């Protein structure tokens, strides 16, 4: 089989994090707590999740928003606002600008979106002069998903940002997922590039991109990983189907990372896992200089909490 599997296994010095609960345990009670700047932090969802993270000794939080509003919502939820730093700003766009500035200046380690509209928030993050992007980076989204029926954490991308990623964007997505898996202690993750079939159909641009990516991985043009695709989800995640179909793939039904061809394939996949597979997730934006927490209001309480835990893990050495 492909010779790139024969690379000597790298020494693994990082603790393996095998579940999202374990992730929480790891980032809790650290001596130096990451400081989080929350943009327009005046809704129940955001305040609830941030309060929990602060109380669990995970982060220190600065809330940027309308002070009376923050106090009113906190009172309603029974939250003691004394555990936060509150910075009064009376305009959501200004709050976005100010939180981005604070993170960029190193006054905070993590940025989190509150009640502000996603587009306004992202615009502040993407701003070429004042924003938070790494130079020439692609903005994308990676989720770590904890599913009871899978034997390990599964990293999936892109659930939220790139609708139709081209080759360069797919490469960036893979790099982000690999770097996130690395933070979980997986040094050479198995990356499955997901399609409807494992065959190289002539009419599928995704299959073409995937073949190119596999060769790039083989030639060391992508961070160390074991990559194969196109693969369907069965071949990627189920050893039994692999045996039935007799496809020779180094991912071998044991994928750590699933890279999807489009947002509309990835987004329903993760929502299906949440709804029908009893899954929980931790996700964040990638491509930024510091972690940015941005989650949907419909995530479960647990998942919201895990998202913050993930940003703490990713904030290390950032």
């Amino acid at each position, binding site marked *: 089989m*492909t*010779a*790139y599997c*024969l*690379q000597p296994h790298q020494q693994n010095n990082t603790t393996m994090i095998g579940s999202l609960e374990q992730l929480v345990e790891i980032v809790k009670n650290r001596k130096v707590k990451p400081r989080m700047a929350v943009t327009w932090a005046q809704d129940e969802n955001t305040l609830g999740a941030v309060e929990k993270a602060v109380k669990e000794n995970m982060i220190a939080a600065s809330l940027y928003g309308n002070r009376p509003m923050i106090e009113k919502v906190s009172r309603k939820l029974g939250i003691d606002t004394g555990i936060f730093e509150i910075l009064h700003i009376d305009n959501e766009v200004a709050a976005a600008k100010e939180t981005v500035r604070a993170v960029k200046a190193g006054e905070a380690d993590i940025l989190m979106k509150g009640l502000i509209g996603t587009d306004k928030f992202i615009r502040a993050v993407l701003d070429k002069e004042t924003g938070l992007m790494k130079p020439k980076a692609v903005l994308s989204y990676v989720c770590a998903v904890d599913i009871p029926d899978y034997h390990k954490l599964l990293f999936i991308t892109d659930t939220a940002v790139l609708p139709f990623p081209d*080759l*360069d964007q797919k490469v960036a997505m893979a790099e982000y997922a690999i770097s996130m898996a690395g933070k979980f202690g997986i040094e050479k993750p198995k990356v499955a590039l997901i399609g409807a079939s*494992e*065959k*190289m159909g*002539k009419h599928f641009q995704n299959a*073409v991109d*995937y*073949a*190119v990516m*596999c*060769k*790039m991985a*083989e*030639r*060391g*043009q992508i961070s160390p990983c074991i990559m194969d695709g196109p693969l369907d989800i069965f071949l990627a995640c189920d050893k039994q189907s692999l045996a039935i179909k007799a*496809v*020779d793939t180094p991912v071998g039904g044991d994928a750590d990372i699933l890279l999807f061809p489009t947002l509309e394939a990835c987004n329903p996949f993760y929502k299906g896992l949440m709804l029908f597979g009893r899954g929980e997730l931790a996700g964040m934006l990638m491509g930024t200089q510091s972690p940015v927490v941005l989650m949907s209001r419909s995530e479960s309480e647990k998942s919201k909490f895990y998202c913050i835990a993930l940003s703490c893990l990713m904030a290390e050495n950032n």
Partner: protein
Amino acid sequence: MILKKLSELKNLLEDKPVRRLALAAAHDHQSLLAVLKASRDNIVKPILIGDENEIRRIAGENGYELENIKIIHEKDIEKTSELAVKMVSNHEADVLMKGKVGTSTLLKHVLDKTWGLRTGNLLSHIAVFEVETYHKLFAVTDVAMNIAPNLKDKISIVNNSVTCLNMLGVELPKVAVLGAVEMVNESMQATMDAALLSKMNQRDQIKNCIIDGPLAFDNAISLESAIHKGIRSEVAGDTDLLLMPDIEVGNVLYKSLVFFAKANVASMILGAAAPIVLTSRSDSEQAKYDSILLAAASAK
């Protein structure tokens, strides 16, 4: 089986009936003499189609007897091509060869829809090289027929060549898809096609061979160079077939191997119902002889 010299192709002819070769417009000095020499060495059984008087004169002047050699007298060059092609399609001959007739004229008849030698495959050229500095024979494609093959063409060219190499006893040929670099680069289509061909091979959509690419020429033929660059490849350093990105690269490589590396070369056209020997005037006598040998060895 690993062949080191073109002359070893003769071993493949043992225990097989002698292949019949139809030479179109056989009254051509160079090709006729190459065929008669091959016939004397029992490599092929010629069928000479052309101007009989001329054929007899050329043979006589060069000391060849034409006893037991079938001659079909036909002065019209167009007609000689038609007859030669028809003999192959009627299974009266196993190999087709071009004599004193233009390539385009002969190919027109090869591609004739009713009695031509079409198989549905693309026609492609293969050249097999014997070079002192490489540990076995290796093939290069396509240096003469397809100008700027697209991905689909490249698949056909690989398939044609692999079938041929299988016939020559190379069971699982190692195919290097050549690029200027071994990295995938979006602005070099050859490297993108190479990645696709590799994956199609992994998925068994291109069979009976091992494909890797992009490989630069040095990585393809020298294991040391591949190791130096940190390339892990089953093909690197042990290539049986080099797939060229286009005709310019292929043609220049072909000629530099002949002129600078003093390579011996045999070549033919694949993809038709039978091998076609299409040598050019500039080919040496030895090259013509070896091409006939190659065609005979790879004929079904």
